[in-house]
């Protein structure tokens, strides 16, 4: 089989599995194995106030942050395993980007969905994708590879079909979540095995340690106006904050509310409210500025 034939076959299979082929074969997603309740693993806030929540088995839900109303977009993303998700408004359009991987195909896939749940676009990576972050100002997607520690970038302006190498976080145990600081031209990256946070200066592609001593930094969210990075620590059941404009930034606790059991997702909305997706608690928590849980929603 030639490489082009292989590629076509792979694309077809992948598209089929994701249920995006308009030929009446799109039942794959609905036939996904019925699982237990899906603990949320990622959360992202849109400027409209809508929260997008990703479940551990690929369930995509929307939460109205004002009313707490839930809309189920998809119960599964086919037989691909979801890793991370980021929602963003580009121009007048809201989009959801989900990083996925498949053990059999041994390749990562980034899929873009509309807010109605329709799959709009896919990109393939050389290896499995993990963390995803989006710089909506420069319309750039950043993707991490958990095992190699490589971070790639993908421009949404051009016709890129696959991400290109940007920088390698060397010595990382497991490269986890990413967060972009568009104004500061920085990218934050967490080592979920080592409990450390790195910052990448994008113009120079230089990397430095931002914080350490955390347990399992499973999610990052950057509040650009307050220049504050929030870190969800899944193993220590708490939320850290790091003031990035400080000359010597140090992690400090933002919340260790007793409701937090395994925070795996975090986002900050336009009102600077912190929302946490807790996998073990099967809930999304709204935190007060003091770090207390003021609302709990089960997506």
């Amino acid at each position, binding site marked *: 089989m030639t490489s082009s034939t292989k590629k076509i076959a792979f694309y077809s*299979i992948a598209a*089929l*599995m994701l249920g995006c082929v308009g*030929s*009446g*074969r799109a*039942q*794959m997603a609905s*036939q*996904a*194995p019925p699982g237990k309740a899906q*603990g949320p*693993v*990622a959360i992202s806030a849109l400027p409209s106030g809508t929260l997008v929540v990703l479940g*551990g088995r690929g369930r995509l839900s929307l939460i109205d942050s004002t009313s707490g109303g839930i809309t189920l977009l998809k119960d599964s993303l086919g*037989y691909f*395993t*979801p*890793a*991370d998700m980021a929602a963003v408004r580009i121009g007048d359009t809201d989009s959801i980007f989900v990083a996925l*991987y*498949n*053990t*059999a195909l*041994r390749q990562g896939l980034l899929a873009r969905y509309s807010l109605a749940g329709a799959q709009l676009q896919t990109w393939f990576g050389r290896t*499995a994708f*993990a*963390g995803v972050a989006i710089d909506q100002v420069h319309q750039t997607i950043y993707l*991490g590879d*958990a*095992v190699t520690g490589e971070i790639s970038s993908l421009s949404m302006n051009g016709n890129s079909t696959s991400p290109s190498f940007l920088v390698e976080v060397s010595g990382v*145990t*497991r*490269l*986890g*979540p990413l967060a972009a600081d568009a104004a500061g031209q920085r990218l934050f990256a967490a080592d*979920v*095995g080592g409990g450390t946070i790195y910052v990448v200066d994008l113009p120079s592609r230089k990397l430095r340690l931002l914080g350490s*001593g955390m*347990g*399992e930094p*499973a999610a990052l969210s950057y509040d650009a106006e307050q220049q504050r990075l929030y870190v969800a*620590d*899944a*193993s*220590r*059941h*708490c939320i850290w904050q790091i003031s990035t404009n400080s000359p010597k930034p140090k992690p*400090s*606790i933002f919340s*260790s509310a007793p409701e937090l059991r395994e925070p*795996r997702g975090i986002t900050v909305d336009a009102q600077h409210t912190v929302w946490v997706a807790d*996998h073990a608690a099967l809930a999304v928590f709204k935190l007060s500025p003091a770090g207390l849980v003021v609302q709990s929603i089960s997506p």
Partner: protein
Amino acid sequence: MICAGKTRRARTVLLGLLFLSPLYPCPLFATVTLQIPDVNLPDGKVEFRPGICDPTAVPATLPQQMPQSTTSNYTVAVDLGNTTRGSYGYFIYPVYVHPNGGQGQRCAFRVQVLPSGTFIDKMQDVTFHVGEGAQLEDGLVRIPLYNFVYAKSILQGHAGDQLSPVSLSGSTTLDVTLNNTLSDLPIGLYPEVMVSPGHGSYWQGTPQAAVHIPRSNSTVLDAGQSLDGAVVLNLRPNPWHALGASIFPLAPGKAHETLTLYVSYDSPGGVPGTLEIPVAIRFSPSFWSLILSVFVGAIAGSLLAQLGKTSVDGMKWYKAFVVALLCAGIAEVLGIMLVYGGSEFRLFGFELDPYQLLPVGAIGALVGLVGFRNADDFLKLLKKQP
């Protein structure tokens, strides 16, 4: 002495302050320590990172189903029923430590398990060190190690035949064999199997397939098990479309249609996967359809022979017709026997499939044309052309 005392007090105060500082907001409950050294495998490595001791998450008793290991002072159990998968290529195993005497600190550890390499899921003896302070006790526990990336699929499958015959009319059931390549772990199968036909029009509705394990309510393939008929595929061709696809001659080894089955699975606790199984289909008419086709061909051939006045020795038309019919029937049965036995069936040097309608009609017509002449003519038909 006074200085030494002050230093000690200052150190204690400092340690106390450090303990109460916001850097340790997630309380350090106890001094029980769990260490698990890395496991090196021929095709990979697994690292273990136990979190901090959490005495609030420990069950009162350790269920016997959990893999356990006992040292002099502790029992260590791994809660395999509650393992979870991290988003970034790792697993979380809850591990409980109970003091044997009932007195002392109980701990729950959230152990981060980080696989690398391409090893397939397996059971492995894992050493650990547990204890308080510097005095740690050694132990060994046998647990499954899972991976995210395999060199090859842990589940393999194939249809019973390289080319599965499917009747043009009615329904056909095909068995698919599944093989669990893991030597010491079961594989769980999801009951629904998706079927993707190459040509949807060839089928009445969507072909259906389901996992079928002989034991009731079980969808688990045991370690190393190979099971014929683990997936049952039910097919109902759309007769006219299927006939259209199969009426024109095709070499016997070629498929009229290929279906793809998607079987979803996981090793319990591991990462779900999907196995694709291509099933090559060859439509086959019923025996009576074949006989009818060969007779129609023979009649046509005889009529042509009569029109062309190719009959010899003044043989009557009806006699020539009966001879042609018989010879055609014999040729078809002979062809079926030859092909069934693994031989080729050739007519005028062309390899023909005696299971397909058009070639069978052609056999009837050719035999009808010349079948009444003599035995030599008939036998010449079957010879391979130089």
